Protein backbone atom coordinates (compact mmCIF):
# COMPACT_ATOMS: atom_id res chain seq x y z
CA UNK A 1 0.00 0.00 0.00
CA UNK A 2 1.31 3.36 -0.99
CA UNK A 3 2.03 5.90 1.69
CA UNK A 4 -0.37 8.80 1.50
CA UNK A 5 -0.34 12.08 3.26
CA UNK A 6 -3.68 12.60 4.88
CA UNK A 7 -3.19 16.23 5.71
CA UNK A 8 -4.44 18.68 3.12
CA UNK A 9 -3.10 22.13 2.49
CA UNK A 10 -6.21 23.61 4.09
CA UNK A 11 -5.24 21.96 7.37
CA UNK A 12 -2.25 24.25 7.76
CA UNK A 13 -2.88 26.76 10.46
CA UNK A 14 -2.95 30.29 9.06
CA UNK A 15 0.07 32.26 10.24
CA UNK A 16 -2.02 34.93 11.89
CA UNK A 17 -3.65 32.31 14.12
CA UNK A 18 -0.53 30.67 15.35
CA UNK A 19 1.23 33.97 15.88
CA UNK A 20 -1.68 34.98 18.01
CA UNK A 21 -1.67 31.71 19.90
CA UNK A 22 2.04 31.95 20.37
CA UNK A 23 1.62 35.31 21.94
CA UNK A 24 -0.97 33.92 24.29
CA UNK A 25 1.07 30.89 25.14
CA UNK A 26 4.17 32.94 25.41
CA UNK A 27 7.38 31.03 25.87
CA UNK A 28 5.45 28.11 27.30
CA UNK A 29 6.79 26.23 24.31
CA UNK A 30 10.12 26.15 26.07
CA UNK A 31 8.59 24.05 28.79
CA UNK A 32 7.36 21.66 26.11
CA UNK A 33 4.30 21.09 28.21
CA UNK A 34 1.82 22.53 25.76
CA UNK A 35 0.10 24.72 28.28
CA UNK A 36 -3.30 25.09 26.66
CA UNK A 37 -3.91 28.56 27.97
CA UNK A 38 -5.43 29.84 24.78
CA UNK A 39 -8.12 32.49 24.87
CA UNK A 40 -9.41 31.17 28.21
CA UNK A 41 -6.78 33.37 29.78
CA UNK A 42 -9.20 36.10 30.77
CA UNK A 43 -9.41 38.25 33.87
CA UNK A 44 -9.99 36.16 36.95
CA UNK A 45 -12.38 37.42 39.61
CA UNK A 46 -9.47 36.92 42.01
CA UNK A 47 -7.19 39.30 40.11
CA UNK A 48 -6.45 42.68 41.62
CA UNK A 49 -7.25 45.66 39.44
CA UNK A 50 -3.72 47.06 39.60
CA UNK A 51 -0.94 47.86 37.15
CA UNK A 52 1.56 45.02 37.28
CA UNK A 53 5.22 45.67 38.04
CA UNK A 54 7.48 45.47 34.97
CA UNK A 55 8.71 41.96 34.12
CA UNK A 56 12.26 43.29 34.14
CA UNK A 57 11.89 44.32 37.80
CA UNK A 58 10.04 41.15 38.81
CA UNK A 59 12.78 39.01 37.30
CA UNK A 60 15.81 41.01 38.48
CA UNK A 61 14.98 41.75 42.13
CA UNK A 62 14.62 38.40 43.86
CA UNK A 63 15.06 36.61 47.14
CA UNK A 64 15.97 33.04 46.25
CA UNK A 65 18.75 32.16 48.70
CA UNK A 66 19.48 28.91 46.83
CA UNK A 67 21.37 31.20 44.44
CA UNK A 68 22.83 33.65 46.99
CA UNK A 69 21.57 36.35 49.34
CA UNK A 70 22.00 39.34 46.99
CA UNK A 71 18.91 40.59 45.18
CA UNK A 72 20.67 40.12 41.83
CA UNK A 73 22.20 36.71 42.64
CA UNK A 74 19.20 34.64 41.48
CA UNK A 75 19.10 36.40 38.09
CA UNK A 76 22.87 35.88 37.73
CA UNK A 77 23.04 32.23 38.74
CA UNK A 78 19.65 30.61 38.11
CA UNK A 79 20.38 29.89 34.45
CA UNK A 80 22.27 26.78 35.62
CA UNK A 81 19.07 25.25 36.97
CA UNK A 82 17.63 22.32 34.99
CA UNK A 83 13.83 22.52 35.06
CA UNK A 84 12.98 19.94 32.41
CA UNK A 85 12.17 17.16 33.17
CA UNK A 86 10.44 18.03 36.43
CA UNK A 87 8.28 16.02 38.75
CA UNK A 88 6.68 16.52 42.12
CA UNK A 89 6.62 13.83 44.79
CA UNK A 90 3.24 13.92 46.51
CA UNK A 91 3.19 11.81 49.65
CA UNK A 92 1.96 11.54 53.22
CA UNK A 93 -1.78 11.42 53.90
CA UNK A 94 -2.98 11.14 50.30
CA UNK A 95 -4.98 8.48 48.44
CA UNK A 96 -2.67 8.40 45.42
CA UNK A 97 0.92 9.05 46.52
CA UNK A 98 3.65 9.07 43.92
CA UNK A 99 5.80 11.03 41.57
CA UNK A 100 3.72 13.35 39.41
CA UNK A 101 5.33 14.57 36.21
CA UNK A 102 4.80 18.28 35.63
CA UNK A 103 3.60 17.67 32.08
CA UNK A 104 0.92 15.28 33.33
CA UNK A 105 -0.15 17.66 36.08
CA UNK A 106 -0.54 20.52 33.60
CA UNK A 107 -2.74 18.39 31.34
CA UNK A 108 -5.23 17.93 34.16
CA UNK A 109 -5.48 21.41 35.64
CA UNK A 110 -6.97 24.69 34.47
CA UNK A 111 -4.51 27.54 34.31
CA UNK A 112 -5.42 31.20 34.39
CA UNK A 113 -3.89 34.58 34.99
CA UNK A 114 -3.96 35.93 38.54
CA UNK A 115 -2.79 39.48 39.14
CA UNK A 116 -1.78 39.48 42.80
CA UNK A 117 -0.16 41.87 45.22
CA UNK A 118 3.13 40.45 46.45
CA UNK A 119 4.51 41.66 49.77
CA UNK A 120 7.98 40.71 50.98
CA UNK A 121 8.73 40.58 54.71
CA UNK A 122 11.54 43.07 53.95
CA UNK A 123 8.85 45.75 53.31
CA UNK A 124 8.98 45.91 49.53
CA UNK A 125 6.09 44.98 47.29
CA UNK A 126 5.18 44.23 43.70
CA UNK A 127 2.12 43.46 41.62
CA UNK A 128 2.69 40.21 39.75
CA UNK A 129 0.57 38.82 36.90
CA UNK A 130 1.04 35.13 37.66
CA UNK A 131 -0.13 32.31 35.44
CA UNK A 132 -1.05 29.18 37.35
CA UNK A 133 -3.69 26.89 38.77
CA UNK A 134 -5.32 26.57 42.15
CA UNK A 135 -3.38 24.34 44.51
CA UNK A 136 -6.62 22.57 45.45
CA UNK A 137 -6.67 21.04 41.95
CA UNK A 138 -3.33 19.36 42.56
CA UNK A 139 -4.30 18.23 46.06
CA UNK A 140 -7.55 16.76 44.75
CA UNK A 141 -5.60 14.98 42.02
CA UNK A 142 -3.67 13.16 44.75
CA UNK A 143 -6.72 12.79 47.00
CA UNK A 144 -6.40 14.27 50.48
CA UNK A 145 -7.10 11.82 53.31
CA UNK A 146 -9.58 12.77 56.04
CA UNK A 147 -7.04 13.18 58.83
CA UNK A 148 -4.70 15.54 56.96
CA UNK A 149 -4.44 19.01 58.50
CA UNK A 150 -1.35 20.58 56.91
CA UNK A 151 0.52 20.66 53.62
CA UNK A 152 4.32 20.69 53.64
CA UNK A 153 6.40 21.78 50.63
CA UNK A 154 10.04 21.34 49.70
CA UNK A 155 12.26 23.08 47.17
CA UNK A 156 14.70 21.18 45.00
CA UNK A 157 18.04 20.42 46.70
CA UNK A 158 20.73 20.39 44.03
CA UNK A 159 23.85 22.26 45.25
CA UNK A 160 25.71 21.74 41.97
CA UNK A 161 23.10 23.94 40.26
CA UNK A 162 22.12 26.02 43.29
CA UNK A 163 25.36 27.52 44.67
CA UNK A 164 23.66 29.20 47.64
CA UNK A 165 22.93 25.77 49.08
CA UNK A 166 26.67 25.44 49.69
CA UNK A 167 27.27 28.90 51.15
CA UNK A 168 24.13 30.36 52.72
CA UNK A 169 23.41 29.73 56.37
CA UNK A 170 19.92 28.20 56.04
CA UNK A 171 18.95 24.61 56.62
CA UNK A 172 18.41 23.03 53.20
CA UNK A 173 16.25 21.99 51.49
CA UNK A 174 14.03 25.04 51.82
CA UNK A 175 10.68 24.06 53.28
CA UNK A 176 7.37 25.74 53.81
CA UNK A 177 3.91 24.78 54.97
CA UNK A 178 0.28 25.78 55.04
CA UNK A 179 -2.74 24.72 57.02
CA UNK A 180 -4.98 22.56 54.82
CA UNK A 181 -7.76 25.18 54.65
CA UNK A 182 -5.22 27.80 53.54
CA UNK A 183 -3.90 25.41 50.92
CA UNK A 184 -7.39 24.65 49.60
CA UNK A 185 -8.34 28.34 49.39
CA UNK A 186 -9.00 29.46 45.80
CA UNK A 187 -6.50 32.35 46.16
CA UNK A 188 -3.66 29.87 46.76
CA UNK A 189 -2.10 28.93 43.46
CA UNK A 190 0.75 26.96 41.96
CA UNK A 191 2.28 29.33 39.43
CA UNK A 192 4.04 28.30 36.22
CA UNK A 193 4.50 31.67 34.56
CA UNK A 194 4.59 35.46 34.81
CA UNK A 195 2.95 37.70 32.20
CA UNK A 196 2.91 35.41 29.17
CA UNK A 197 6.35 33.98 29.86
CA UNK A 198 7.13 30.64 31.43
CA UNK A 199 8.30 31.14 35.02
CA UNK A 200 11.76 32.75 35.00
CA UNK A 201 14.18 30.43 36.79
CA UNK A 202 15.05 33.14 39.32
CA UNK A 203 11.37 33.39 40.22
CA UNK A 204 11.06 29.70 41.07
CA UNK A 205 10.69 27.75 37.82
CA UNK A 206 9.04 25.61 36.84
CA UNK A 207 6.48 25.40 39.63
CA UNK A 208 6.07 27.59 42.70
CA UNK A 209 3.50 28.37 45.32
CA UNK A 210 1.83 31.78 45.57
CA UNK A 211 -0.10 32.68 48.73
CA UNK A 212 -0.86 36.36 48.19
CA UNK A 213 -1.97 37.25 51.73
CA UNK A 214 1.26 35.98 53.33
CA UNK A 215 4.81 37.32 53.26
CA UNK A 216 6.72 36.28 50.17
CA UNK A 217 8.92 33.63 51.77
CA UNK A 218 5.83 31.46 52.31
CA UNK A 219 5.47 31.26 48.52
CA UNK A 220 8.09 28.52 48.14
CA UNK A 221 9.84 28.14 44.78
CA UNK A 222 10.90 25.26 42.50
CA UNK A 223 8.79 22.72 44.38
CA UNK A 224 9.70 19.02 44.21
CA UNK A 225 7.76 17.63 47.14
CA UNK A 226 4.31 18.10 48.63
CA UNK A 227 3.45 16.19 51.80
CA UNK A 228 0.06 15.99 53.49
CA UNK A 229 0.39 15.64 57.24
CA UNK A 230 -1.50 16.03 60.51
CA UNK A 231 1.31 17.95 62.24
CA UNK A 232 2.41 21.55 61.70
CA UNK A 233 5.37 21.20 59.33
CA UNK A 234 8.80 22.75 59.82
CA UNK A 235 9.37 25.92 57.82
CA UNK A 236 12.84 27.20 56.94
CA UNK A 237 12.74 30.80 58.20
CA UNK A 238 10.86 29.78 61.32
CA UNK A 239 13.59 27.21 62.05
CA UNK A 240 16.23 29.98 61.78
CA UNK A 241 14.47 32.72 63.79
CA UNK A 242 11.12 31.67 65.31
CA UNK A 243 10.51 35.08 66.90
CA UNK A 244 10.94 36.85 63.56
CA UNK A 245 9.19 34.44 61.20
CA UNK A 246 6.05 32.70 62.43
CA UNK A 247 4.34 29.73 60.82
CA UNK A 248 1.40 31.84 59.64
CA UNK A 249 3.29 34.91 58.41
CA UNK A 250 0.14 36.69 57.32
CA UNK A 251 0.84 40.20 56.08
CA UNK A 252 -0.11 42.42 58.99
CA UNK A 253 0.78 46.11 59.38
CA UNK A 254 0.02 45.89 63.11
CA UNK A 255 2.58 43.19 63.88
CA UNK A 256 6.17 44.42 63.52
CA UNK A 257 9.05 42.28 62.52
CA UNK A 258 11.29 42.52 65.61
CA UNK A 259 13.85 44.44 63.58
CA UNK A 260 11.57 46.67 61.51
CA UNK A 261 8.03 47.96 61.24
CA UNK A 262 5.58 46.38 58.80
CA UNK A 263 3.23 49.38 58.69
CA UNK A 264 4.50 50.63 55.33
CA UNK A 265 5.89 49.17 52.13
CA UNK A 266 7.86 50.36 49.13
CA UNK A 267 6.50 49.40 45.70
CA UNK A 268 9.32 48.20 43.46
CA UNK A 269 9.77 50.01 40.18
CA UNK A 270 9.12 53.56 41.38
CA UNK A 271 12.77 54.59 41.21
CA UNK A 272 14.77 56.66 43.66
CA UNK A 273 11.88 58.81 44.82
CA UNK A 274 9.15 56.16 45.15
CA UNK A 275 6.76 56.93 48.00
CA UNK A 276 6.11 54.42 50.74
CA UNK A 277 2.52 53.24 50.98
CA UNK A 278 0.52 51.79 53.83
CA UNK A 279 0.54 48.03 54.10
CA UNK A 280 -2.89 46.41 53.99
CA UNK A 281 -3.98 43.73 56.41
CA UNK A 282 -3.71 40.31 54.78
CA UNK A 283 -2.06 42.24 51.96
CA UNK A 284 -5.46 43.48 50.79
CA UNK A 285 -7.13 40.06 50.84
CA UNK A 286 -8.84 40.52 54.21
CA UNK A 287 -12.33 40.02 52.82
CA UNK A 288 -11.38 36.69 51.26
CA UNK A 289 -9.23 35.15 53.99
CA UNK A 290 -9.82 36.83 57.38
CA UNK A 291 -12.46 34.22 58.28
CA UNK A 292 -9.80 31.50 58.15
CA UNK A 293 -8.36 33.00 61.33
CA UNK A 294 -11.56 33.73 63.28
CA UNK A 295 -10.87 33.68 67.00
CA UNK A 296 -7.10 33.45 66.56
CA UNK A 297 -4.68 35.90 68.14
CA UNK A 298 -2.76 37.16 65.12
CA UNK A 299 0.04 38.56 67.28
CA UNK A 300 0.73 35.26 69.01
CA UNK A 301 0.18 33.35 65.75
CA UNK A 302 2.19 35.75 63.64
Amino acid at each position, binding site marked *: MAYTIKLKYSDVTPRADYMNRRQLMGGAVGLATGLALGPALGASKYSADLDPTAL*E*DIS*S*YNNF*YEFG*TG*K*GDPASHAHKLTVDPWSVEIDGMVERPGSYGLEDILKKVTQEERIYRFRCV*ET*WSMVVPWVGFELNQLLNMAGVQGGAKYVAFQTLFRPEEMPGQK*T*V*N*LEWPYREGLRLDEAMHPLTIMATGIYDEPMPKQNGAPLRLVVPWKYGYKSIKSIVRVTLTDKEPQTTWNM*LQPNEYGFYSNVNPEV*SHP*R*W*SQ*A*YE*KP*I*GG*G*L*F*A*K*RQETLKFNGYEEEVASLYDGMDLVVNH
Partner: protein
Amino acid sequence: MSFVDRINSALRSVPVWVLYVAGAVWPAWLLYLAATGSMGAEPVKALEHELGRLALKALILGLCVTPLRAVVGINLIRFRRAIGVLTFYFVSAHLLVWLVLDVQILSEIWKDILKRPYITVGMGAFLLMVPLAITSNNWSVRKLGPTWRKLHRLVYPAVLLGGVHFIMVGKTWEIDALIYMVVIAMLLGWRIWQAYKKRKRRAQSTTSVSRATT
Protein backbone atom coordinates in the same frame (compact mmCIF):
# COMPACT_ATOMS: atom_id res chain seq x y z
CA MET B 1 65.51 53.28 47.43
CA SER B 2 63.36 50.57 48.97
CA PHE B 3 59.86 49.70 47.82
CA VAL B 4 58.28 51.31 50.90
CA ASP B 5 60.37 54.47 50.40
CA ARG B 6 59.19 54.67 46.81
CA ILE B 7 55.55 54.37 47.91
CA ASN B 8 56.07 57.03 50.56
CA SER B 9 57.67 59.49 48.15
CA ALA B 10 54.88 58.86 45.63
CA LEU B 11 52.32 59.52 48.38
CA ARG B 12 54.10 62.75 49.31
CA SER B 13 53.54 64.05 45.79
CA VAL B 14 49.73 63.63 46.11
CA PRO B 15 48.11 66.78 47.50
CA VAL B 16 45.53 66.12 50.23
CA TRP B 17 42.87 68.12 48.40
CA VAL B 18 42.82 65.41 45.70
CA LEU B 19 41.51 62.97 48.29
CA TYR B 20 38.90 65.48 49.48
CA VAL B 21 37.63 66.08 45.95
CA ALA B 22 37.54 62.38 45.05
CA GLY B 23 35.75 61.56 48.32
CA ALA B 24 33.25 64.38 47.85
CA VAL B 25 32.38 63.32 44.31
CA TRP B 26 32.00 59.59 45.02
CA PRO B 27 28.58 59.66 46.81
CA ALA B 28 27.31 62.13 44.20
CA TRP B 29 28.33 59.64 41.50
CA LEU B 30 26.46 56.86 43.36
CA LEU B 31 23.39 59.11 43.60
CA TYR B 32 23.59 59.70 39.87
CA LEU B 33 23.78 55.94 39.20
CA ALA B 34 20.79 55.32 41.45
CA ALA B 35 18.74 58.08 39.85
CA THR B 36 19.44 56.87 36.31
CA GLY B 37 18.45 53.27 36.87
CA SER B 38 21.91 51.71 37.10
CA MET B 39 21.33 50.38 40.61
CA GLY B 40 18.52 47.97 39.86
CA ALA B 41 14.83 47.77 40.66
CA GLU B 42 15.18 49.17 44.21
CA PRO B 43 17.76 51.96 43.94
CA VAL B 44 17.09 53.39 47.41
CA LYS B 45 18.23 50.33 49.34
CA ALA B 46 21.09 49.81 46.89
CA LEU B 47 22.32 53.38 47.40
CA GLU B 48 21.81 53.24 51.15
CA HIS B 49 23.77 49.99 51.47
CA GLU B 50 26.52 51.17 49.13
CA LEU B 51 27.02 54.35 51.18
CA GLY B 52 26.99 52.37 54.41
CA ARG B 53 29.68 50.02 53.13
CA LEU B 54 31.67 52.99 51.82
CA ALA B 55 31.57 54.61 55.29
CA LEU B 56 32.75 51.40 56.95
CA LYS B 57 35.56 51.02 54.42
CA ALA B 58 36.69 54.60 55.09
CA LEU B 59 36.56 54.00 58.85
CA ILE B 60 38.67 50.88 58.42
CA LEU B 61 41.14 52.73 56.19
CA GLY B 62 41.49 55.39 58.90
CA LEU B 63 42.27 52.68 61.43
CA CYS B 64 44.90 51.23 59.09
CA VAL B 65 47.05 54.39 59.15
CA THR B 66 48.83 53.69 62.44
CA PRO B 67 49.54 49.95 61.96
CA LEU B 68 50.60 50.58 58.34
CA ARG B 69 53.23 52.99 59.56
CA ALA B 70 54.33 50.88 62.51
CA VAL B 71 54.42 47.51 60.79
CA VAL B 72 55.02 48.19 57.11
CA GLY B 73 56.49 51.69 57.20
CA ILE B 74 53.98 53.24 54.79
CA ASN B 75 53.11 56.72 55.93
CA LEU B 76 49.53 57.90 55.34
CA ILE B 77 49.43 60.26 58.29
CA ARG B 78 49.03 63.34 56.03
CA PHE B 79 45.78 61.92 54.77
CA ARG B 80 44.34 60.80 58.09
CA ARG B 81 42.24 63.89 58.76
CA ALA B 82 40.82 63.82 55.23
CA ILE B 83 39.95 60.13 55.65
CA GLY B 84 38.21 60.91 58.94
CA VAL B 85 36.26 63.89 57.62
CA LEU B 86 35.20 61.95 54.51
CA THR B 87 34.10 59.03 56.69
CA PHE B 88 31.74 61.37 58.50
CA TYR B 89 30.48 62.71 55.19
CA PHE B 90 29.78 59.15 53.93
CA VAL B 91 28.00 58.21 57.16
CA SER B 92 25.89 61.39 56.95
CA ALA B 93 24.97 60.61 53.34
CA HIS B 94 24.03 57.04 54.37
CA LEU B 95 21.87 58.43 57.18
CA LEU B 96 20.25 61.03 54.92
CA VAL B 97 19.29 58.46 52.30
CA TRP B 98 17.76 56.33 55.04
CA LEU B 99 15.82 59.31 56.46
CA VAL B 100 14.67 61.05 53.31
CA LEU B 101 14.43 58.38 50.62
CA ASP B 102 13.94 55.16 52.57
CA VAL B 103 11.84 55.64 55.72
CA GLN B 104 10.39 59.01 54.67
CA ILE B 105 7.87 59.25 57.54
CA LEU B 106 9.02 61.17 60.62
CA SER B 107 7.04 59.17 63.20
CA GLU B 108 8.41 55.94 61.71
CA ILE B 109 11.96 57.32 61.90
CA TRP B 110 11.66 57.88 65.66
CA LYS B 111 10.06 54.50 66.21
CA ASP B 112 12.85 52.84 64.25
CA ILE B 113 15.60 54.61 66.19
CA LEU B 114 14.12 53.72 69.56
CA LYS B 115 12.67 50.28 68.87
CA ARG B 116 14.96 48.66 66.30
CA PRO B 117 18.27 47.63 67.87
CA TYR B 118 20.25 47.70 64.61
CA ILE B 119 19.10 51.28 63.95
CA THR B 120 19.88 52.24 67.55
CA VAL B 121 23.37 50.77 67.19
CA GLY B 122 23.91 52.59 63.88
CA MET B 123 22.71 55.89 65.34
CA GLY B 124 25.04 55.34 68.30
CA ALA B 125 27.98 54.99 65.92
CA PHE B 126 26.93 58.18 64.12
CA LEU B 127 26.60 60.17 67.36
CA LEU B 128 30.05 59.03 68.52
CA MET B 129 31.49 60.42 65.29
CA VAL B 130 29.88 63.87 65.64
CA PRO B 131 32.42 65.28 68.16
CA LEU B 132 35.24 63.79 66.09
CA ALA B 133 34.06 65.60 62.96
CA ILE B 134 33.62 68.87 64.86
CA THR B 135 37.15 68.72 66.30
CA SER B 136 38.90 67.73 63.06
CA ASN B 137 40.72 71.06 62.69
CA ASN B 138 44.02 72.59 63.88
CA TRP B 139 42.35 74.99 66.27
CA SER B 140 40.65 72.12 68.17
CA VAL B 141 43.87 70.13 68.30
CA ARG B 142 45.68 73.11 69.88
CA LYS B 143 42.81 74.02 72.17
CA LEU B 144 42.17 70.50 73.48
CA GLY B 145 45.80 69.44 73.79
CA PRO B 146 46.17 65.87 75.14
CA THR B 147 42.38 65.62 75.54
CA TRP B 148 42.10 65.66 71.74
CA ARG B 149 43.89 62.31 71.46
CA LYS B 150 41.69 60.80 74.16
CA LEU B 151 38.53 62.17 72.53
CA HIS B 152 39.46 60.72 69.16
CA ARG B 153 39.68 57.24 70.66
CA LEU B 154 35.88 57.34 70.28
CA VAL B 155 36.54 56.06 66.78
CA TYR B 156 37.17 52.61 68.29
CA PRO B 157 33.67 52.11 69.75
CA ALA B 158 32.25 53.82 66.64
CA VAL B 159 33.80 51.35 64.21
CA LEU B 160 32.80 48.45 66.43
CA LEU B 161 29.17 49.64 66.48
CA GLY B 162 29.33 50.16 62.71
CA GLY B 163 30.45 46.57 62.17
CA VAL B 164 27.78 45.21 64.53
CA HIS B 165 25.14 47.36 62.78
CA PHE B 166 26.09 45.79 59.43
CA ILE B 167 25.86 42.25 60.81
CA MET B 168 22.48 42.98 62.45
CA VAL B 169 20.91 44.26 59.22
CA GLY B 170 21.22 40.86 57.52
CA LYS B 171 18.46 38.28 57.66
CA THR B 172 21.09 35.55 57.93
CA TRP B 173 24.83 35.62 58.80
CA GLU B 174 26.03 37.52 55.75
CA ILE B 175 29.59 36.65 54.78
CA ASP B 176 30.68 40.16 53.77
CA ALA B 177 29.43 41.68 57.03
CA LEU B 178 31.42 39.03 58.90
CA ILE B 179 34.56 39.81 56.87
CA TYR B 180 34.27 43.51 57.78
CA MET B 181 33.92 42.50 61.42
CA VAL B 182 37.01 40.28 61.32
CA VAL B 183 39.08 43.13 59.84
CA ILE B 184 37.77 45.55 62.47
CA ALA B 185 38.54 43.05 65.23
CA MET B 186 42.09 42.60 63.92
CA LEU B 187 42.72 46.37 63.79
CA LEU B 188 41.38 46.91 67.30
CA GLY B 189 43.12 43.77 68.56
CA TRP B 190 46.46 45.08 67.26
CA ARG B 191 45.97 48.28 69.30
CA ILE B 192 45.11 46.35 72.45
CA TRP B 193 48.24 44.26 71.94
CA GLN B 194 50.37 47.40 71.45
CA ALA B 195 48.94 48.98 74.59
CA TYR B 196 49.65 45.78 76.53
CA LYS B 197 53.27 45.69 75.31
CA LYS B 198 53.73 49.35 76.20
CA ARG B 199 52.40 48.84 79.71
CA LYS B 200 54.65 45.82 80.20
CA ARG B 201 57.69 47.81 79.03
CA ARG B 202 56.82 50.65 81.38
CA ALA B 203 56.37 48.25 84.26
CA GLN B 204 59.77 46.70 83.51
CA SER B 205 61.50 50.06 83.25
CA THR B 206 60.01 51.30 86.53
CA THR B 207 61.13 48.13 88.34
CA SER B 208 64.62 48.49 86.89
CA VAL B 209 64.68 52.17 87.91
CA SER B 210 63.59 51.32 91.43
CA ARG B 211 66.21 48.56 91.58
CA ALA B 212 68.86 51.04 90.45
CA THR B 213 67.95 53.52 93.17
CA THR B 214 68.11 50.99 95.98
